[in-house]
């Protein structure tokens, strides 16, 4: 198939960016979206032009490295799909496709389609862990966890930290991402001792990073490639209000 791509090009964080149009030809419907960009990049390199920089790594939909805002949606038109698992069969011959980086003040652009998502790491460093040293822990079966709780914790833990929720939100809120980690650890018995300080610290860091407030529109959950549920946001709110009311942050 032949397509027209409109791609955001930006040399670095300081430079102004612009949309550049590239026609691409002979794309197979079985190609992934990133393979289609590979084909374009090979062509650009041979012509001596700079290829388009974009983030990607596992190409199996699990590492969370790929991003891309495609035709106004994070990870493109398919629900429950990362960009690397999006295939060209979902587009039509002759389509014009607009490709942009995640747009959020807290995710500055490094180059072209690559953004800096280190804010997510810092939010987790603020408390998204269980404080336990290696060794000296109890036997794994010593604390049984009801299957329903374990499954719920697992569902929250599947977040791949790609940032689609932020990109989808009109306020660029990171609340779905933060709520997933808070829920996972709040649900598990092992995470309960730091439950209150964790949610307070993570939310404080989230605000510090410049993410916006929750817009309550639910776009984050709709666009999440791994189906993180808005139930987690409810849980985060309960956790946060409860923690603030009886704060242990001394």
């Amino acid at each position, binding site marked *: 198939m032949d397509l027209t791509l409109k791609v955001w090009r930006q040399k670095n964080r300081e430079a102004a960016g612009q949309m550049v149009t590239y026609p691409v030809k002979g794309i197979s419907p079985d190609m992934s979206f*990133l393979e289609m960009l590979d084909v374009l990049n090979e062509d650009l*390199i041979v012509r*001596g032009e700079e290829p388009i920089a974009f983030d990607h790594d596992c190409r199996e939909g*699990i590492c969370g490295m790929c991003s891309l805002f495609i035709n106004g949606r994070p990870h493109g038109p398919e629900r429950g799909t990362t960009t690397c698992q999006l295939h060209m069969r979902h587009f039509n011959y002759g389509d014009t496709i607009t490709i942009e980086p995640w747009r959020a003040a807290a995710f500055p652009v490094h180059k072209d389609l690559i953004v800096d998502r280190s804010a997510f790491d810092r939010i987790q460093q603020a408390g998204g862990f269980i404080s336990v040293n290696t060794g000296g822990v109890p036997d794994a079966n010593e604390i049984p966890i009801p299957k329903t709780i*374990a499954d719920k914790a*697992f569902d929250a833990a599947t977040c791949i930290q790609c940032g689609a929720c932020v990109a989808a939100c009109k306020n660029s809120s990171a609340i779905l991402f933060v709520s997933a980690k808070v829920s996972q650890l709040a649900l598990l018995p092992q*995470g309960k001792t730091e439950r209150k300080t964790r949610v307070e610290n993570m939310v404080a860091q989230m605000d510090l990073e410049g993410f916006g407030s929750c817009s309550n529109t639910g776009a984050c959950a709709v666009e999440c490639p791994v189906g993180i549920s808005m139930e987690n946001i409810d849980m985060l709110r309960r956790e946060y209000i409860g923690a603030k009311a009886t704060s242990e942050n001394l």
Partner: protein
Amino acid sequence: MILDSKIPEGPIAEKWDKHKFDVKLVNPANKRKYDIIVVGTGLAGASAAATFGELGYNVKAFCFQDSPRRAHSIAAQGGINAAKNYQNDGDSVFRLFYDTVKGGDYRSREANVYRLAQVSVNIIDQCVAQGVPFARDYGGLLANRSFGGAQVSRTFYARGQTGQQLLLGAYSALNRQIAYGKVKMYPRTEMLDLVMVDGKARGIVVRNLITGAIESHSAHAVVLATGGYGNVFFLSTNAMGSNATAAWRAYKKGALFANPCFTQIHPTCIPVSGGYQSKLTLMSESLRNDGRVWVPKTVEMAQRLRKGEIKVADIAEADRDYYLERKYPAFGNLVPRDVASRNAKLVCDEGRGVGASGLAVYLDFADAIKRDGQAAIAAKYGNLFEMYEKITDENPYERPMRIYPAVHYTMGGLWVDYNLMTTIPGLYAAGECNFSDHGANRLGASALMQGLADGYFVLPYTIGDYLARMPYEKVSTDHPAFKEAEQAVLAKNNLLLSINGTRTVDDFHKELGLIMWEHCGMARNEEGLKLAKQEIRRLRDEFWRDVKVTGVNEELNQTLERANRVADFFELGELMVDDALNRRESCGGHFREESQTPENEALRDDENYAYVAAWEFTGVGNEPILHREELEFENVKLTQRSYK
């Protein structure tokens, strides 16, 4: 050079405990005087860096991704082994040890493997304490499943994303140390050289992938946990960024590289579909718990199927050949990966393969769905089925999956002793980037186990022994050795940028990959390997004459990043071929066509090849020197592997 494995004396079950007592300790107050560099933050690197931080060392951790949580450990699907015997099905540390040594076709080091089985038990406890949400049964206890090469259920799992959950556990432990200031994290930073001072590893030179700045970092010890080199084949199940550069440049500084030709070919990958394809996707081995592998009984029927004259459903039960169940009744579809891969190749070579290319076999869930219901199968493997459908546009609940073997894991890597130290003092290698635990073939659910064992429970002990013997003085990055290495790295980058030829990096990489797959892949022979060596040399010369790398060093430049990695793959590819040529026997995933039993099984030659082949660098284009570490099997008798 004499390879001293430093295996402790005594009965195998007591070696590690005795060694832990014998190693020197660093006083807690002195730990803060030592700096450790960890390169790579997957399961091995993140767990090591976090644990060093917990102990009190100053740690600098590096990864080329934008976050440690993207390391390719994340993609492991099926599970992690541990000899917990929660199922009361006869498992034990010794049985896990035995299965692993046998599964590796007797080419791993007994003492290391035994230790791995021992600490496997602690790994599960550790991960659960960190909040890793393993699968549980209705009583709230941990669930298990089986993996290839074992007859017990010892694999712990988190649906089809065990790697992600374990990595997130290690990443959170790492984050905790970053928050405490004990670990300084350098993401989007790639190691491009190892720096040695007075014969010891004392630092690294890196490129900041955002600014292109070439920087030096000094430490008392350096740990490489940089994963495997399967991407030498271009098409593999590895992440696109997985590379050999850090380990390879350490090799060029004097670390020996062991068993480079031992590549694991994973039997259950989605088949190749077109020349543009950038990577292969694995379907977890755990699927073989419920999926049955088959091809049509006759070539004629397979041909009609490929032409579309008949459909899968038209093939009667009696016309299907469940070849694994037929040939290996005891293990059936759960034979180890090398056996499953080789048999898939055999039936496809016979002309009985399915799919348009004929290079695929069926993995069929119809019986399991009939037996347990679709909901039960979806609960066990749902995300894997979805992944398959996304890529192939076929619904695996309705028709069988098509699968074919693909390059997956590399058992070769930097040679290490029992302490995981390479032949360079102060340079350690952990996880997939060392050679020690998997022999010639890795059993499923063992990679995660080794990564975490090395990081959480081995290195934190053994590195202390080394540091306790050395002075606190730090080497400044102004030292001439650092400046020299920085200059060399920059010169190489500038050379790559200046060639301005006509072919892209990927173009070269794909051609190299085809040579490797054709001649050093699932089956090899003397003639093909000799041809491959010439071809690699020809292509490497062409690369340095005709590659086109755009942009400059001083900014984010993904083409330059890839060019450096592919340049190293050319040199590594040749070493893999040298190693394969030297090893005139079949073992594990390394199948020399000249060495097979009448039933086409791998035929080992223990008389002549029961050794680790550790290669010493002598210059690009020169023949490397072979050093042998003889393997002794005192606890698992050397026998022909049989899964019948």
